[in-house]
């Protein structure tokens, strides 16, 4: 009975997973997005007239990366007179402030210092001084592609209703297994963000280089603490108020991903906890036709996948545990002996329908990754270490923070930034 119920549940979860994957894929191709990126060339056309832009860089203990972040902003292909950079030290305890002071006299840069109060307070301090038409933020552990800003400006110019534009985020360096996994994950994100933008269903405006029409802040207010995920809350608030969020899939931003499992766990716990709690704060976005595909499909299934991932991991651990126990029992019963090594016939291959469906889900994921790589400006190798590591390990490790985030929400416990 339990086994049958588990089987039906697995089929149901697989159906929804495949359905959503197919829906995203159809949405991606809606506007013929499979054109090659031009990341090595300059932006094909310059929007005119170019608006003034301010980029806020909130920093808290970013001594190792802030300088490179600033230099990447200074290297942007954008009129110098129209681009301002606000460096805001949020009470760092390392040498971040000293490093920021090296830019004191730079004509494009303003530096601010405040007591530590959280990233949203640093951003809000910057917003108080912004006078430009467009404002963006860039985390101090991220670096922008020289053409990113111009490309994103084109999106603003193409659609006057777009109030925010998100970039294509990529992992800066893949020098550890965790970063390798994130590399594939972020490329998958490039695809999903583009498809999400086509549906106007984005619910995150990532800290690394999301741009906004400044007027949006006077319409819906500044950043909030928002369970330490102010970028998610702000996007949900925009969606709640009916404002459009766009995406530019060839505006590359490179971010330094957590190197170790422990660091990744902390980051993702914060994100997942933030998603659950912000979604709770904006529960009106769920199953609400007023919010289109976002309300009907994207928000509900984003929450569904969180629990589905926990469910699948539970099933996997249960199955592996059962097999391991069988192995131990066999060892105890007959001791170690070399099994019959003659090749099994085709008869003994698992050909359950679930295997084929899982294969279809994986194949589509692989296809999405390949497209993600292509539009992410990388060589679209089908099988590569990042893809393999992602497909093999991501589900298992994501369970760790999914379970922890659900637990912390239920137990009303807060998460930490780092």
């Amino acid at each position, binding site marked *: 009975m339990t*086994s*049958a119920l588990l089987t039906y549940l697995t089929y149901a979860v697989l*159906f929804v997973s*495949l*359905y959503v994957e*197919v*829906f995203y894929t*159809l*949405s991606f191709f*809606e506007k013929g997005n499979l054109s090659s990126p031009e990341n090595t060339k300059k932006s094909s056309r310059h929007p005119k007239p170019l608006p003034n832009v301010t980029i806020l860089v909130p920093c808290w203990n970013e001594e190792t990366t802030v300088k490179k972040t600033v230099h990447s902003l200074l290297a942007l292909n954008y009129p110098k007179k129209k681009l301002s950079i606000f460096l805001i030290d949020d009470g760092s305890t390392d040498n971040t402030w000293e490093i920021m002071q090296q830019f004191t006299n730079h004509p494009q840069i303003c530096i601010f210092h405040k007591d530590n109060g959280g990233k949203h307070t640093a951003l809000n301090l910057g917003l108080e001084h912004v006078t430009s038409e467009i404002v963006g933020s860039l985390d101090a552990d991220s670096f922008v592609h020289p053409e990113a800003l111009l490309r994103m400006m084109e999106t603003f110019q193409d659609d006057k*209703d777009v*109030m925010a534009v998100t970039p294509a985020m990529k992992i800066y360096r893949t020098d550890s297994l965790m970063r390798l996994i994130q590399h594939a994950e972020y490329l998958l994100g490039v695809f999903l963000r583009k498809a999400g933008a086509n*549906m*106007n269903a984005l619910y995150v405006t990532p800290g690394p280089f999301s741009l906004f029409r400044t007027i949006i802040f006077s*319409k819906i207010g500044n950043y909030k603490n928002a369970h330490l995920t102010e970028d998610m809350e702000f996007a949900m608030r925009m*969606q709640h*108020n*009916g*404002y*459009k969020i766009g995406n530019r899939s060839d505006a590359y931003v490179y971010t330094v991903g957590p190197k170790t499992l422990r660091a990744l766990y902390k980051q993702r716990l914060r994100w997942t906890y933030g998603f659950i709690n912000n979604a709770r704060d904006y529960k009106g976005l769920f199953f609400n*036709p*007023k*919010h*289109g*595909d*976002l*309300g*009907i*499909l994207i928000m509900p299934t984003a929450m569904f996948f969180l629990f589905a991932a926990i469910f699948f991991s539970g099933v996997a651990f249960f199955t592996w545990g059962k097999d391991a126990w*069988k192995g131990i*029992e*066999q060892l*105890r*019963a*007959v*001791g170690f*002996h*070399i*099994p*019959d*090594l*003659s090749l*099994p*016939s085709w*008869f*003994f291959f*698992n*050909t*359950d*329908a*679930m*295997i*084929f*469906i899982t294969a*279809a889900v994986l194949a589509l994921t692989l296809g999405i990754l390949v497209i993600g790589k292509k539009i992410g400006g990388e060589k679209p190798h089908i099988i590569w270490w990042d893809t393999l590591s992602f497909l093999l390990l991501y589900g298992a490790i994501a369970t760790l923070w999914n379970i922890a985030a659900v637990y912390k929400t239920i137990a009303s416990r807060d998460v930490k930034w780092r």
Partner: protein
Amino acid sequence: MSSQHTIHWQRYLLALIITGGVFWLAISISNRIHDERVQEIQSIENNISMNILSLETQFDLLAEVSCDEIDNTILSKELNSLASRLDYMEQQRGKDDVEVERLKEYYSLMQIKDYLLMKKIGKECGDEPVSILYFYSNEGDCTDCEKEGYVLTYLRENYPGVRVYAFDYHIGLSAVNTITSLYGVTENRLPAVVIGRKTLYGFQSKEIMEGLLPESLKKPTDTTNTTTTTTKTTTKK
């Protein structure tokens, strides 16, 4: 600002058709392969049936032919091959699958037939093979059945002269019911193993079982030379 949100109903429908199509295709392929498996099993059962008939005929002709000409090894291999396939099918489709149940009933009958025939041939030719009757349950009420299955698989693989006949106590076949009552096997004493004239209840370790084998068999052969097709067994549940 007015809401920019749209519901793409056509896309929902198209996604549903594609997803449904993938499910339909997956289930169709799986069922097709299942049908081929059933056919393969039926083909093995037909072979066994034919071999039993052939052996019976040979036995009836014993007066005319020599005992040396009766070859029962092929039948043993086929029964083992069938056992492992049925076991796999049962794992895949579940014990309540009608097709699997039917094939298993037929297999049980052939085992009984083979067991009786071997006994007869043994008496006539003075070379009765070592037969082990094993009664198990896969209703979740026999915690040691799986372990006993491992032991009997080991014996089957390492002692080709041993014929293991495994019966699901709950198969509901009158012939199996008769054989269980013949050896006094009851539901609450599973697993039960009948070897020679002894009926043993509960888990019997590898050492105990090996100790019950005749000395002549106690030279484990190289398993790679046996043609037993798999390490799986129908005896475990």
